[in-house]
């Protein structure tokens, strides 16, 4: 059962990854090829997943859309981890003043989720894939702070930390040599979970038109441009792609957690 979750997540994630990578080299049709004669085709042998309002091939655009999804996800999670983990570790090592300040800052970020941050940035400097990425990344920082803080505290209760302290190791050395290697697997689990949340947030932002420009195919943008009244297929397909990707990285995270630490498994 545990392996099942991990393998499901892994296979599903790899498919998303492959779609994005392959689209760099090859797509069934050029993703921007407009064809007035082929508007709103249903899935079939010529266009596997049909065509949209401008006659553009949905399968090709779906593959190219995976690029944006993956890139925004990777960058946003990287921002969150690079900013959040050092704060979390230092608070976990016992820096109380910093803990208070960061706790208040997290409160504010909780009230300002990614979409609201992106709306603020879009209103002042204009929406782009970068404002979307930064907004999602910043909004995810508290998650990494909280997680790495909790993991650090667990590590710090171990006896070898006491031994290291007694032998004169500095805080920084303990953090680098003992804490980081020990919390790394947990960080991997968190990264997968946050990645799926980032995909969901990016999809929402591109649905609202607050991410990549309209010319770049994105899953959220494809959903926005489609109409349930004209062609339900063109709504269902990008929507299912988002569900697939979110589910993939969720399962990957759950599977990794169960595999690394069976005690944390939900299915006790």
């Amino acid at each position: 059962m545990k392996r099942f979750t991990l393998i499901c997540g892994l296979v599903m994630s790899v498919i998303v990854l492959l779609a994005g990578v392959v689209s760099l080299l090859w797509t069934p049709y050029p993703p921007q090829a407009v064809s007035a004669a082929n508007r709103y085709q249903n899935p079939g042998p010529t266009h596997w997943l049909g065509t949209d309002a401008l006659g553009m091939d949905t399968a090709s655009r779906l593959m190219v859309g995976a690029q944006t999804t993956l890139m925004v996800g990777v960058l946003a999670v990287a921002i969150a981890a690079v900013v959040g983990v050092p704060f979390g570790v230092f608070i976990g090592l016992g820096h109380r003043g910093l803990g208070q300040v960061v706790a208040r800052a997290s409160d504010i970020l909780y009230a300002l989720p990614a979409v609201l941050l992106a709306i603020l940035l879009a209103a002042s400097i204009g929406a782009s894939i970068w404002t979307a990425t930064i907004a999602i990344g910043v909004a995810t920082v508290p998650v990494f702070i909280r997680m790495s803080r909790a993991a650090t505290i667990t590590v710090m209760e171990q006896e070898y930390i006491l031994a290291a302290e007694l032998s004169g190791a500095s805080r920084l050395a303990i953090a680098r040599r003992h804490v980081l290697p020990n919390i790394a697997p947990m960080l991997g689990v968190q990264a997968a979970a946050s990645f799926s949340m980032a995909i969901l947030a990016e999809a929402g932002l591109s649905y609202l038109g607050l991410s990549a420009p309209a010319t770049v195919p994105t899953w959220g943008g494809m959903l926005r441009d489609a109409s349930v009244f004209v062609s339900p297929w063109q709504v269902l397909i990008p929507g299912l792609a988002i569900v697939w990707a979110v589910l993939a990285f969720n399962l990957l995270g759950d599977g990794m957690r169960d595999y690394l630490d069976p005690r944390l498994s939900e299915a006790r």
Partner: protein
Amino acid sequence: MSISAAVIRRLAVFLATLLIASLIIFTLVQALPGNVAQATLGMGATPEAVAELSRRWGLDQPFINRYWDWLFALIQGDLGHSYATGLGVGQQLAPRLGVTAWLLVWSLPIACAVALPLGMMAAMWRRRRRGFVVNAITQVGFAVPVFFAGSILVIVFALKLGWLPANGYVSITSSPAAWASHLLLPVATIAIVQACFFARYVRSSFIDVMVEDYYRTARAIGWTRWRGLIRHGLRNAATSLLTVVGLQVANLLVGAILVEKVFVLPGLGSLLMSAVAAHDLAVVQVIVMLLVAVVLLINLLVDIAYLLVDPRLAGRAGGGL
């Protein structure tokens, strides 16, 4: 620390957080002040006209002055004027508030009411196929973007079955029946997605109780599983649900913005999005401020509710990590 002192302390933290949030929002939105007058008047405007408009709107003032002026006006209930239309922001906001408020007021309790039995079933049957199915449904459900869920409901209930209108809004005063039918799908959309998210927390809080000795004792003396879970588990699940609701309020508001777009509802979210498109910063900053204030206020109320349930928390600092 007594409970009233703890409540006052949390109130102070709430106000301080609100103040800092207002500074962040104003800073982010007003990062490029000079361009507002230019953008409003268009590229062909004379520099004199731009300068005149900047002066009238106070855009030539130093940043910190503009912030204080905005904040003090806000505290006194003056929400400012739209840069795009010149109308009062409050005037634009008022008819929109009700739509978004109805969405949230209905969807949150429904989500909780669905999540409790769902999570309970998933916990009770966690080693059986039925439990696996319930678990899988919640796992998939919470991977569904709320705007996609809305589209699916429109396809099924409006287009295929023709039971409900696909979009639009009718006010409750003009026709309560039409109001309800127009609100049903948007509310269901938010409620279903949130319920799947809540159900996962409810499930693990029920499981926490099921591994306790007192639950085993209850079972040993002949209580049925249902009785044991309801008598012992429900309180635990309710508290954890309260926590998640606090954490999810912000996402709930974002969900409302997205759902308003799907169903073309004239709420706060659609006003916010059209203000963003028009670079109407005065409207954007007030709406975001309002949404943030609502999130912080609900979290304050959740915190206080906690204190009343568990007075031991009075000694601890509220919220945060």
